[in-house]
């Protein structure tokens, strides 16, 4: 008779060897570095062109994100519609996203269509014109989007906590107002485009099943562009944290929930302490079985979900706890967050719970490395942070070897309520 109360034997996930498959690395004629992971089961490709063109480099608010958005909205010979039509016809996805240090153009398509689309991507890097009319529509629609977002407590809380941590002049803390959109001019966008895309610094990350001649293809279309000619100066931005630590904002008098954000600065991802903090973070609030979720959702039912995060910024990082909780239980939720911090400061985590966290981390890491897009994603993150494979291996070793004692010491240093900004927006 089957005894269902006994768990089957398991292989502890920590016993797994995890290796990050190495990408091929080569350079185009102009010195642009290409990282490629050739693998996969489906005939699909992903290529990302990463430029040092994020808001770290902008002269004025929103220039970086607006020029990134308008990059594919017209060249001298093609309208925005013609560009979109072309990309859609080949069943491709050409997206762009703007971050703090970097801005990215990404292409996803069937392998067989790649050669059709690359000439168009080249054209965008040579000859985007960002027409006045497109800018006008962009401003209008973005202002409307902002107006809707300003009604949401989670949106207000998200941008305010960044401003408290880094200051509202710092690229990590800056946020936009209506009149920032009004103030954008085409000339400024073109200037940003010219310096940071057309004559900018580019790195290419590709993955999937690429056609045999992909090196020639990439070199043909991107090897003779004026990329990486000038050494970009590393701009400094000073962090101006808010002197005020606790803030309550009433954004919507009829609101039925409050957005809670609790945060403090922490070491950056390339710092060895960060890798250890990642384990502490998972235990504290980084997965469904975490202390925060177990107490505040699964025991008290105050929220649909509560998580803690480590920010993945290059120059400065932070620990952030984030949730939306019932309006009448916001205060109780904050109290429980601090209670869970205290538990981790006062008591070493038990053997079973620690093993669970370790197995979970290794297991999900194994799953996350499934497929070429995920593997290149890991590499991109390492490379953009100036890290190497050693950091990845160190992280794996850290997960496997970190002790309850070390986690308690980390908690004593990084989980003190008095170091935290506390924000509740209703």
């Amino acid at each position, binding site marked *: 008779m089957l005894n269902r109360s006994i768990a089957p034997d*398991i292989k502890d*996930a920590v016993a797994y060897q995890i290796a990050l498959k190495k990408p091929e690395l080569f350079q185009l004629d102009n010195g642009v570095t290409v990282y490629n992971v050739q693998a996969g089961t489906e005939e699909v490709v992903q290529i990302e062109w990463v430029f040092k063109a994020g808001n770290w480099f902008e002269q004025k608010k929103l220039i970086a994100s607006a020029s990134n958005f308008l990059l594919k909205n017209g060249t001298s010979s093609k309208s925005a519609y013609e560009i979109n039509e072309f990309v859609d016809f080949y069943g491709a996805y050409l997206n762009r996203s703007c971050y703090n240090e970097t801005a990215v153009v990404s292409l996803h398509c069937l392998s067989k269509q790649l050669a059709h689309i690359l000439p168009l991507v080249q054209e965008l890097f040579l000859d985007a014109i960002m027409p006045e009319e497109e800018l006008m529509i962009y401003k*209008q629609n973005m202002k409307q989007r902002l107006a809707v977002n300003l*009604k949401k407590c989670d949106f207000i809380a998200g941008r305010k906590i960044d401003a408290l941590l880094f200051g509202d002049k710092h690229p990590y803390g800056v946020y936009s107002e209506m009149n920032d959109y009004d103030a954008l001019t085409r000339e400024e966008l073109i200037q940003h485009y010219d310096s940071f895309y057309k004559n900018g610094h580019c790195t290419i990350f590709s993955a999937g099943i690429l056609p045999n001649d992909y090196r020639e293809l990439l070199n043909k279309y991107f090897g003779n562009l004026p990329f990486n000619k000038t050494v970009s100066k590393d701009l400094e931005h000073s962090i101006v944290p808010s002197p005020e630590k606790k803030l309550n904002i009433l954004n919507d008098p009829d609101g039925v929930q409050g957005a809670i954000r609790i945060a403090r600065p922490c070491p950056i991802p390339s710092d060895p302490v960060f890798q250890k903090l990642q384990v502490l973070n998972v235990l504290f609030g980084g997965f469904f079985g975490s202390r925060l979720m177990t107490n505040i959702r699964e025991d008290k039912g105050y929220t*649909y979900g509560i998580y803690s995060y480590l920010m993945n910024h290059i120059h400065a990082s932070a620990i952030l706890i984030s949730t939306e909780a019932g309006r009448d239980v916001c205060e109780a939720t904050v109290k429980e967050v601090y209670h869970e911090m205290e538990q981790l400061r006062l008591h070493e985590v038990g053997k079973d719970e620690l093993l669970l966290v370790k197995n979970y981390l290794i297991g999900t890491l194994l799953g996350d490395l499934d497929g070429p897009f995920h593997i290149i994603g890991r590499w991109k993150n390492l490379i953009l942070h100036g890290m190497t494979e050693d950091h990845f291996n160190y992280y794996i070793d850290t997960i496997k070897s970190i002790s309850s004692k070390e986690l308690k010491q980390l908690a004593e240093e990084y989980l003190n309520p008095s170091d935290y900004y506390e924000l509740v927006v209703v």
Partner: protein
Amino acid sequence: MIKFDRFVLSNGLKVLVHQDQSTPMAVVNVLYDVGARDEVESKTGFAHLFEHLMFGGSINIPEYDEPLQLAGGENNAYTTNDLTNYYCQLPAENLETAFWLESDRMLSLAFSKKSLDVQRKVVCEEFKEHYINKPYGDVWHIMRDLAYKVHPYKWMTIGKELSHIENAQLDDVKHFFFKHYTPSNAILVVAGNVETAHVRQLAEKWFGSIPSGEKYIRNIAEEPMQNEERRITLKRNVPMDAIYKTWHMSSRFDQDYYVTDLLTDILGGGASSRLYQTLVKEKQLFAHINCYHFGSLDRGLFTIEGQLVKGIDIKLAEEAIELELNKVREQLVDERELEKVKNKTESVMAFEDMSVMNRAGSLAFYELLGDGNLMNEEFKKYQLVNTADLQRVAKEVLRDTNSNTIWYLAN
């Protein structure tokens, strides 16, 4: 081409196995043929609340998540109007842990009072977060209620109102479980670094002895043909006017489903689609506009939703939509335009099939439709669609007397 093996246990549980040795992981996906459409109108939101309770401990195992996490696994679940799907991924060597956990909660839940008390609150917070505390958050409650008079698609998966969730009792939970969570009402898909013979042995061992239960026979009244235009005007505390329009479309089992799907892409699938290009870019009446449907199994809703540019008269904006609808009703779509949306569909399907988890979920879904192998036939059905089909379906579906319109106005 997705290959798989299939067998059925004597208690009626269907098992599909898809092998992929390129990953160290295994995926276990259990789909139950029950969704919000199987609820009664006085107790809505139950299928979804129940999904939460499935993590609150089963008859022999106090905790679902912990042992899975200990085995290096993670999991999630979702509920739709049609179905409830549970999936987990873990290192393949620990596959049996997933069988142990999934089979015990198919055998019986623990029916813990504490779990029900807590999850009622959690789901109420979920309800508030997504449907009350968000601008335009209530629109789909109102639209479903407007569009359906008989069919249970008239309420959302989350439920009609908070009180239905707040009032859920343990007896309701038990009744729901034994009615719907039976082997004959479930599909098990195991995928990844697994062997069919091993899966068969594990399936017999863990699921084989679960009583088959009484087969649930779904008996849902069909929504009668709509014969009059329906309209509602709402005033709410939102910054911009918006318009929502729906029309009843074919069921998931009809070849016209594929025609309709491509038609939504032509009108509103991305930056080169007709509605976006004309109404957002050229006429600048809308800040954004989309056209889509929900992929419902029974007759679903063809939908257009858009947010107006501030200051634009909503009547004018609706007329402009109507003009575009007239074009698809009155003129054949260009062959190249049809080819474009077919290409896009081909590409979407290839990207979806990249992860083992998605493949497992899709196999379960197509098995629910009748045969896992439909997954491999799907693109052919899109290829069959021609421009005359598009025009015919546009005429049949996009009729005024089949339409439901909400003007969602800023007050």
